[in-house]
Each structure stands twice: as structure tokens, then as C-alpha cells.
């Protein structure tokens, strides 16, 4: 179906694909940043058990985790312009990449919300009580005591989400975005060296996700410096986090689970 296999092309395509890495990373970084914000907004009604908003959060989570990202991409790409027309906003000329970023952000937002909820829940209740007992108000207790500890707990899950998001961006090609996968398809079709192109593509993804994983590992060590000897206490918290928040242990092309590495 293509040209005979020639390993030397792998390197050539690697060089040709690398420039499109910045589009991939643009999608990843912006959707993660927005997704974190979305995640916070969605998690808050659940953390503070706000009556009606809590329902909305639940439906949001259920929808974005209950449907494939590919379907969501198409849904927003086709649907959002229609909805915005209602308020006389014409987005027909807005480049597709903005829709893609928005979709990935909303999608990650659901998982981020779960992560935040789980991590905050894993911080010992006694910590908040101690904060109150020294006279802090609720906001101070949250920002100074709970959040820093929750962040350290959430890092492994966050790392998973970023890497999963990176892998998910490979679907953006379906809306014509020329990120790495999109570019590789064009290259492959033109040269007929399919396998070589896709090997190059896989190599780049692998190196990036591997690097990210190592990076987050370092960050985690730094944030957990107060646990110089990792106590069973924190291990328990991590286990609890993994057990109760099963969605984050998840799997498939959309959510990787690597909690149990090591």
C-alpha cells in the first residue's frame, strides 16, 4: 500500500514534524490553563456543597466524562457557531483552533474538577481545624493550609491529565488542525512512507510524555519536601485518592492511569 520500508526516512520526518510540535503544545498548554480555571469553578460547588450549583457540576462532569473527546470536538465545532448565532455573534470566521482549545479545556476541566475535589478531600480535616484554632478565617485556611498540601497530593494526577491531554490532541487533526498528527498524515499521504512517518510521530509523542513525567516527578519531590521520610500517612492519602477517585485512575486513549508506577 505504500513505498517499501526505509528506516532512514524516520529521521527525516522527525525533523519535518518537529515545527508543528508548537501547535500541539499550544493546544495542550492553553487548554490545561483554562481547564484548571474551569475545574476550580466546577469543583467549588461540590467542595462547599452549594445546593443547586452542585447539580450543575454533576451534570457537567457526567457529560464531559461520559462522551468521547472526538464527539465533543465535533459537537462544539458544529454546535457553538449555531448557538452563538442566537446572540448575534458570528463566529464563522473564527479559526478552528479556538474551538479545539475550548473543547479540550472544557474536557480537561471536568477531570481537573475531580482532581481538585479529591486532593482537597485528602487533606486531613485536622489541618483545617488547626488553622481555625490559630484564628484564621475560612479563606486563609484554604489558601495557606489546604491548597498547598492539596497541590502536592494532586501532582501525580495532574501529570496524568497533562499527558493524557497531550495524547488527546492527536485528534485535533479531524478538524483540520495542522498539529503533529495532522501534519504527519499529510506527509505520509504525499510520500507514501506511512510507517516511517508514524514511527517518527510516535517517537515525538513518547519523548514529550516521558519528559513530562520525569519533570512532574521532580516537582512532586520538591512539593513534598515536608515529607522527607515519606510517612505511611501520605501514602495512605495517595492510596485513598487513587481508590476513591476512580475516574482519575482511568484509562483508554483519553485518560491514562499511572498511579501505580514504582
Amino acid at each position: 500500500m505504500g513505498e517499501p520500508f526505509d528506516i532512514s526516512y524516520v529521521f527525516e520526518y522527525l525533523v519535518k514534524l518537529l515545527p508543528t510540535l508548537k501547535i500541539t503544545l499550544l493546544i495542550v498548554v492553553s487548554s490545561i490553563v483554562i481547564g484548571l480555571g474551569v475545574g476550580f469553578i466546577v469543583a467549588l460547588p461540590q467542595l462547599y456543597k452549594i445546593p443547586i450549583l452542585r447539580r450543575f457540576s454533576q451534570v457537567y462532569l457526567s457529560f464531559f466524562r461520559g462522551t468521547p473527546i472526538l464527539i465533543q470536538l465535533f459537537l462544539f465545532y458544529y454546535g457553538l457557531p449555531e448557538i452563538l448565532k442566537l446572540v448575534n455573534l458570528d463566529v464563522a470566521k473564527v479559526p478552528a483552533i479556538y474551538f479545539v482549545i475550548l473543547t479540550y479545556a472544557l474536557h480537561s476541566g471536568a477531570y481537573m474538577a475531580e482532581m481538585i475535589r479529591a486532593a482537597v478531600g485528602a487533606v486531613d480535616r485536622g489541618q483545617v481545624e488547626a488553622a481555625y484554632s490559630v484564628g484564621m478565617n475560612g479563606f486563609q485556611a484554604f489558601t495557606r493550609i489546604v491548597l498547598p498540601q492539596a497541590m502536592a497530593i494532586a501532582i501525580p494526577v495532574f501529570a496524568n491529565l497533562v499527558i493524557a491531554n497531550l495524547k488527546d490532541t492527536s485528534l485535533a487533526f479531524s478538524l483540520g488542525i495542522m498539529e503533529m498528527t495532522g501534519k504527519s498524515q499529510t506527509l505520509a499521504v504525499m510520500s507514501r512512507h506511512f510507517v516511517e512517518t508514524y514511527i517518527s510521530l510516535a517517537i515525538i509523542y513518547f519523548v514529550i510524555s516521558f519528559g513530562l513525567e520525569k519533570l512532574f516527578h521532580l516537582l512532586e519531590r520538591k512539593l513534598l519536601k515536608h515529607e522527607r521520610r515519606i510517612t505511611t500517612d501520605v501514602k495512605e492519602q495517595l492510596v485513598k485518592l487513587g481508590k476513591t477517585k476512580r475516574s482519575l485512575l482511568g484509562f483508554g486513549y483519553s485518560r491514562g492511569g499511572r498511579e501505580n508506577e514504582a
Partner: protein
Amino acid sequence: MKLDFAFIWTAFLQLLTAVPTALAITVVSVSCGLLIGTTVAIIRLYKIPVLHPIAASYVTFIRGTPMLTHLLLIYFGLPIIVDGISEALGLSFRSVSIPMIGFAYISFSITAGAYMSEVVRSGLLAVNRGQIEAAYSIGMTTSQAMRRIILPQAFSASLPNLSNSVIGMLHGSTLAFTVSVVDINAKAQIVASTNWKFFEAYLAAALIFWGLTFIIERLTALAEKRFNLYNRGGVS
């Protein structure tokens, strides 16, 4: 905007015909993945020489790359290998006789295998060490202990992860359209292409996936109740 509700319903009904394909992909990849995953997990847990590093690299590579690249590599790479081998052996079999969906089955099983191995591994690790010692103490062999004591407990411990894997593969089945398999996603494109009502078609597709996911979650909850009977009690 006028949302064409009638068409959402039409699309919904038409998309239902693609549900069996999606389910077939899910079931095949999950079952084969479970088989691969269990083998890999046992190889890694017992640190079997030679196989152990291979298994580890397999898991690391698959989890470090998108599922789509696995599919593309299998779709374009497997025929070269298959044809090469059968030519060398003088067989008449050629890769063109592999149906499109076969590539999806193979590729997704390989993907699922890597993730499943982690599910199985964490399930096995969740079983208390004392359990196997107790099994030995009443004279069971390793394989008896595995089958009768460890695996049943590991299974119920990993049910939530397992359910996530199934949902992951179900959602992953939407990638099959790239190798021309008519799954729910491809069907939505086809249904909408006649009248350009893509939004409606994808709404219907989203609803179907949402429903299927919901069903899987319900079933898991039921299974958890059933299998975790022995786990009751404790503090709560």
C-alpha cells in the same frame, strides 16, 4: 438557530445501527487486553528474566503515545510484516484479506493490554500479602492460591479501574473511523452529510455515548455490590 429535534431523533435511530460495532470493538479490545494485561502484569510482578524488560517497555511505550498512533502504525505496518512473513513461508495469505475492523481489534487490544496490565497489577498488589501466606499455610500451590484466593480478591479491588478501562475503550472506538470502519462517529458524519445538520447528528451521538457510559457505570456499581460482599463491615 433552529434545532431540528425531529432530525436528532432520526439521527439517533440511524446511529443505533452503529452501536453493535462500537460494542464489538469495546468487548474484543477489553477481553484481549485483559488477557495481554494479565500476562504482562504477572511477568512484571514475578520479574521473569528477559520478558520483564520487554513487558516494561511495551507498557511504557504504549502509555506514552496516543492510541491513534497505535492504530495508524498497525494499519500501515502490519500488512508489511504479514505479507513479508507469508511470502517468505510461501503462503497464499495476503494482508488485503484482513477486514478493516480487524486492524481496529488488533490495535486497540494492544493499547488496552498496556493499560490493563496496570489495572491488574494494582489489583494484585492490593491483595494483602498475608492472604497468599494463609493459602500456602493450608497447603495450596501457587497456582491454586492465585486462582482461588488472590485473583478473586484482586478482581473486586480493581473493578472501578476495570470499569474505567471499558469506558475508555468504548470512547476510544470512535477512532476506528480513521481506518474506514463505520462506527458511531463515522455514522454521524454519514447521516449528516445529506442535509448538513452536523450539530444535530453529533448531539445524537453524544447522547448515545452518554447513555452507554451511564449503563456501564450502573453495571459496575451493581457488580461492586455483588463482589464486595465480603468487604462489608469495618468502621462505616
